[in-house]
């Protein structure tokens, strides 16, 4: 796992977390995290509730900046090779390239079209044809285009829960981010909608790099290439999904997977 392996074939990781400590005010939430996310792979973060999965995910697009007192106290986060805490990093550009989908689907109470176009509009895109094209492309990616192409100007709140969540995915990928962060995107959905989004994940990985937080271990097996297991703010194990689930190296991981967790 040395950082300077002479591998020429593998491109540098798109997200790299190095020796990172993270604190909410006085309480430390993450301890010495090291993580590499490869291009066009799905990486899952699993672990018991409160172990810091969301915190770690939100470190990648610096959403934690919104929380007062929350900060990285040691180490660094690199996205596309750049330390994102460096002074010359523009947050709006970072977040344009690192998209995020939240647990609760939260479309704006605007039209479907406006929801998807939102990201492009705030980045100054005015051309109707570019927006039209981006809306179609994003909705197609999110497997929504066929369902919704005739009612693009209907209010997004009229959609079903599963459709709303896919709309949120479409909205997040409209700006063509390199990385798509998903925080338990299916936890509020029924099994069929969940299945649809899981299928989507493989498609998305062809174009984007996906990091997904999930509570559901079967889901991690089904969708991810790599899995990271966190426990009490520490990254216990990080390995290819198959390996981690069939042959965990750490006792703690094994216990968690078997459900015999103390």
């Amino acid at each position, binding site marked *: 796992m040395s950082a300077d392996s002479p591998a020429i074939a593998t491109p540098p990781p798109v997200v790299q977390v190095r020796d990172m400590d993270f604190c909410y005010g006085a309480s430390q939430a993450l301890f010495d995290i090291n993580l590499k996310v490869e291009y066009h792979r799905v990486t899952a973060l699993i672990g018991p509730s409160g172990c810091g999965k969301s915190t770690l995910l939100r470190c990648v697009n610096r959403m934690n900046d*919104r929380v007062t007192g929350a900060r990285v106290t040691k180490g660094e986060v690199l996205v596309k090779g750049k330390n994102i805490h460096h002074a010359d990093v523009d947050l*709006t550009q970072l977040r344009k390239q690192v998209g*995020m989908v939240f647990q609760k689907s*939260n479309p*704006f109470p605007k039209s479907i079209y406006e929801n998807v176009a*939102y990201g492009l509009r*705030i980045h100054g895109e005015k051309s109707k044809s570019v927006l039209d094209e981006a809306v179609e492309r994003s909705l197609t990616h999110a497997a929504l285009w066929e369902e919704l192409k005739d009612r693009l100007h209907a209010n997004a*709140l009229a959609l079903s829960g599963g459709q709303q969540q896919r709309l949120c995915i479409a*909205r997040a990928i409209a*700006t063509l981010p390199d990385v798509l962060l998903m925080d338990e995107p299916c936890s509020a959905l029924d099994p069929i909608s969940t299945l649809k989004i899981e299928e989507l994940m493989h498609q998305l990985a062809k174009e984007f790099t996906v990091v997904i937080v999930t509570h559901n271990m079967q889901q991690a097996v089904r969708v991810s290439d790599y899995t990271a297991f966190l426990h009490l703010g520490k990254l216990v194990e990080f390995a290819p999904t198959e390996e981690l689930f069939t042959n965990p190296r750490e006792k703690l991981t094994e216990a968690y997977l078997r459900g015999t967790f103390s």
Partner: protein
Amino acid sequence: MTPAPTTDNPFAGDNSGIQKRETAARWALRIGSHIVVFTTLAIMLHIFVKGAPVVFQSKWPFVNTQFLTKLPATLHVIEDKQGHRIETDVNGADAVKKKLGDDFRSEKTVSYSGGGILGPIVGTALLVVVSVGVALFLGVACAIYLSEYAKHGKFLETVRLAILNLAGVPSVVFGLFGLGAFVLTAPVFVDVPADRSVLAIPLGFTTLSFEGWDTCVLSGGFTLAFVILPVIITASEQCLQAVPQGFRETSMALGATRWQTIRYSVLPFATPGILTSSILGIARAAGETAPIMFTAALAFKDKLPWQKDMPPLPTDASIFAHWEQSVERFLGIFTESVQALPYHIYTIAAKIPQNEYSERAQYGSVFVFLVLVASLATSSILLRKRLRAKYRW
């Protein structure tokens, strides 16, 4: 072992203390709310019964246009020997007396109770426009800052507390504040500063002199703005907070700046509430007497704010040729002192000898005032309904 039933009804109430208290509480609450409703209705009815005959009439156009379109004036009541009373104004009095000749018995004057109440209506409208404009701008800006930008903590709590306290300050204190701040010290651009100027800063082409705006619509409007500011800030902040936090997170996660987030995914959804609260602010501003007593209102004025002794604009060219003068005259409206409805009501109710004529003028004014305020409240409710339907989540 089943105990033998004592009555046929196994669910009969036992008339215990619990049940008695329940009944007592229900009745106490019911009576309380009925008293409120009854009192409100009684006040409305009283004003309607006494005021409506002044404003409405049985002949076409059914509304007493005189009352709504004339300025207040002194009422002259002339009585003839048969006991008939003729009401007229100062200009008509002599003619009436001449016509009556020997029939003339007595003449009585009642100040402020004749004519109409156009002056106070116009004055109140101007004051409301200025105060709501200022309060909305400052209040919404402040609410946005407090709710979206300011860091949570001691300072923010202190500011909130200060705003809440501001709402509890008696309005006469605002009046004195307005007198000191706007009437006597607010800055103006003048060529020659007045003697009473607190501070004069020469700017070369003109002088910025802190000599106050005098009693005028502007002073009164700003003072009223501070009276309604706490209401507007608190209400606006609540409306902003009611917008789901997820909208902000999503917008920021898409790379929007804070202002873009506010502009596109917070404000549109908070506007209905903000507007509603501002309309209620209008009703409050229109009703305050003390803050305008020293800053804007006159007990009596025989001119509307735009009726000034000025040479008429040359009529040779289009109005645009004299736009500078036109603008100046328009702004001049706001530097005039005015009459205002609440102060007018106070004057005719408390400052002049009471009789049937002054009472009539009182109730007429109060009725008009009430109708204006009620229609504002109604429109705020309608507006909120419409906007809610448009932006709901």
